[in-house]
């Protein structure tokens, strides 16, 4: 099916994307356009009981924190953005959002910061006025900035009660030598502690990254497209360009295996993390798509190894993988929460054996077809609310700046064959790209 041609609706908007694709997996009609200031806008109308999801995706996450001593600022900004502007100070902003009954929140990851509201359709214009205002004119004083740093430290303390957080923090630090992925989204604890003194820096962070060229506005749900386009033009056109790209250090090629241990100050089952350096997201790259399918077939919840370790032998409490899709090469990791520490070596051997098997023997075509079928239904069944649709699109927006890559990504996945999976396993899942970390409790 041909993707619908996008309409140039008003002066100041340029057509963003008119490419036709042979296959369309994303079943909803959408419009993408760009304002003159570089802001990309994506509109996805759908039936939704008078609700809509209003997402502003800033393509800055902890990845962009390249200056030493300033980690954690992307996340800190997620908090500061609720402090308001001169026109609508924090308490006024809060009152207006409260009056609208908006379900408003935000989150930060390595590659993005996302501000999202679920609102009644009738409040679209008010929301747009408030949101465009705070992205253009955020204003806070040093005292408010310092108070918020207390809440951020509180969030860090809350997270630190979990062994998984200790593992993630240590794993990132061990696996990356130079790249900013070496700190978590929370940032290094010493940097969080020093935040109250960084008021001036915070202004510079906002000024460099919170710019229209680095943001995407996504609206999904019950609304009239022409009306939304008119409002976007009215409220977002005054937002000034000025994005300064971060100077992210390049991670040197890893040439030998790294390993380490971490002690969690509490009781936990041991956790084994085996991570491989992956690749930057590329929707056209068949081997990256094949690597993601390899992870699912080798370590997913229907894999032979999962069934062996979890269901039959019951040696693990949890078993799974994380296939990070990132702007820069991230980690592709296999996690095992192991019941008895004595089984650690055995689990490790089983994972190595499985990788070798996939590097040598082609997977069954039936199993591969079943996985592709699952991918299709999994995607389709989770597009039933504006929030879920927006949630599905956010990451691809952060990585590519739009949603066109989604159909390409699915097309590439559907074209993977058993030989591609062998090639991907051989290319990426090799010892010299590996970092192994073991976490144990008291």
């Amino acid at each position: 099916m041909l993707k619908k041609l996008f309409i140039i609706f008003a002066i100041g908007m340029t057509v963003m994307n008119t490419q036709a694709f042979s296959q369309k997996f994303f079943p909803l009609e959408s419009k993408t356009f760009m304002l003159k200031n570089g802001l990309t806008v994506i509109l996805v109308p759908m039936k939704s009981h008078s609700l809509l999801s209003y997402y502003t995706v800033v393509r800055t996450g902890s990845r962009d924190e390249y200056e030493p001593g300033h980690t954690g600022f992307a996340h800190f900004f997620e908090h500061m953005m609720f402090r308001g502007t001169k026109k609508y100070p924090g308490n006024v902003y809060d009152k207006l959002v409260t009056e609208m009954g908006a379900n408003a929140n935000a989150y930060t990851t390595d590659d993005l910061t996302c501000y999202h509201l679920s609102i009644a359709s009738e409040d679209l214009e008010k929301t747009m006025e408030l949101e465009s205002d705070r992205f253009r004119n955020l204003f806070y004083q040093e005292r408010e900035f310092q108070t918020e740093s207390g809440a951020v430290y509180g969030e860090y303390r809350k997270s630190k009660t979990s062994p998984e957080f200790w593992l993630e923090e240590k794993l990132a630090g061990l696996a990356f030598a130079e790249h900013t992925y070496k700190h978590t989204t929370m940032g290094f604890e010493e940097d969080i502690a020093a935040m109250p003194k960084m008021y001036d820096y915070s202004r510079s962070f906002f000024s460099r990254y919170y710019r229209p060229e680095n943001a995407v506005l996504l609206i999904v749900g019950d609304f009239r497209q022409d009306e939304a386009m008119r409002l976007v033009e009215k409220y977002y056109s005054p937002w000034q360009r000025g994005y300064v790209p971060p100077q992210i250090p390049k991670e040197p090629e890893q040439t030998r295996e790294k390993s380490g241990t971490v002690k969690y100050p509490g009781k936990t089952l041991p956790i084994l993390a085996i991570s491989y350096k992956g690749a930057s997201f590329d929707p056209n790259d068949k081997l990256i798509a094949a690597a993601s399918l390899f992870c699912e077939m080798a370590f997913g919840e229907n894999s032979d190894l999962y069934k062996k370790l979890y269901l039959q032998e019951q040696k693990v409490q949890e078993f799974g993988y994380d296939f990070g899709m990132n702007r820069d090469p991230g980690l592709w990791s296999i996690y095992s929460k192991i019941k008895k520490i004595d089984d650690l070596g055995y689990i490790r051997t089983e994972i190595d054996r499985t990788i070798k098997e996939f590097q040598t023997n082609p997977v069954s075509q039936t199993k591969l077809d079943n996985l592709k079928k699952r991918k299709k239904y999994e995607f389709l069944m989770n597009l039933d609310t504006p929030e879920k649709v927006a949630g599905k699109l956010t990451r691809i927006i952060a990585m590519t700046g739009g949603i066109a890559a989604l159909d390409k990504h699915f097309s590439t996945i559907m074209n993977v064959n058993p030989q591609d999976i062998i090639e991907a396993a051989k290319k990426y899942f090799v010892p010299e790209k590996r970092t192994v970390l073991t976490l144990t409790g008291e």
Partner: protein
Amino acid sequence: MRNKRFVNFASNGTSSFLILYLFISILIIGCGKMEKPKDNLVLLPIEDDQTISFKLWFKVGSQNDPKGKEGIAALTADLIAEGSTQTNSYETILDKLYPIAAGYDAKVDKEMTVISGRTHKDNLNEYYTLLTDAILKPAFKQEDFDRIKSNYLNYIEKQLRYASDEELGKAALYGSIFEGTTYNHLTVGSVESIKSITIDDIKKFYKQYYTNKNLLIGISGGFEKTLPEKMEKDLSSLPDTIPQQIDKPKTAPISGYNFLLIEKPCDATAISFGFPINVMRGQDDFFALTLFNSWFGEHRNSSSHLYQVIRELRGMNYGDYSYIETFLHGGYYNVPDPNNARRQQIFEVWLRPVKNENRHFVLRAALRELKNVVDNGMKKEELELTKKFLNKYALNFATTNIKRLGYAIDSKFYGIDSQGDYIELFRRKINEVTLEQVNAAIKKHIQYKNIKFAVVTRDAEQYKKDLIANTPSPIIYATPKSDAVMAEDKLIESFPLDIKPDNIKIVQVEEMFQK
């Protein structure tokens, strides 16, 4: 568009379980043709939905666990949802569900067990067979039993005790308030009770409670109109018995402030406190109290007054909320999840972890706010703002069809005639409430003198001494605060709390949920 209407013949809010069998829904599908009324169905047909959702409600929960076998209701349901059937091994079931990206799971709470699942229409036949097999022909195999038991033990011994202080505090509070009642224990039981459960116990429990007369079938989405009748017929091979129902729990009166301090080597202190309230969803005072609660402590929302006082102005922690209905997994969900309806609720306050040195101050701050609102009531402008907020915020409570189905089932539990759309009823009722009604409901149901507290902290002995002695607890900020905040802090730091030494119990974290 949805095209449905319910007529519910329930005339009052009587909460007895038996009355639920008398409720009758009349269904009108698509063309408007009236179907035969059924007393055991909740149907929400939505023609253009490409998926079909199921919720099978068995009227059994952890309150039905026999003494010494606590956790058996949860274990039985999980064995049904995550175990083999007489037709297929669990591995085979996973193999069959995998390509259709479908599944089913069990939610067990004090009074309810709901097996839920969803499939794409394309795959209904395969899915339906697997789901009904799970209900009708569970195998209760040893290996499935061992796996799930081991998960439960790990959850209590590792996760709850050591990796989630907030959930630990909340679970301890419920245990304390409902001591000696059927609501007392964790849904997953205790370390010792889980170990004592055998497969024969499970089979007996299944036979007793998974009966045709104890079941309500809920279906929503794009299903054919013959499906409900087919499912009813297929599941009618369950036994016909009506299990004996038990009374709602009777909590012991609380006298003064009662503390359970859980000693644990932690850097931050998690605090939960509350007391029972005699208000259930659907009753008039419920909507008035909902407005008070939303203003005082709306879950995970900066509109919460407690949040404003403790987090926004003082940056002491990540958030502070209150509840008049059980809210499970609050750390994960932003809005409530249906199907944990209960006949006995509590008013609960959740203060997220604060630095240990601020544990006394934060407790005083929260109790002072509670006292203020109980003594003085809500102001007109606060109520008006909260009404506006909740009227639209409630749209977020049930955005999916399976959640709407969940709310429709809860309405059956509470005897609410919601015409199949509880959220609309909720919005209407909220708008009708007056300031006088809210303040009367606060006076009637909320108080600040008799409360139970559960606190997870380090050096509990010192905390005990400070609490008894009413030691002033000045707060030292890392960053400057406004004069208004500093002046109010002076009042908070010496806010008197009348706490008797005998009312503070200290337990080691290792002892929690052992028996």
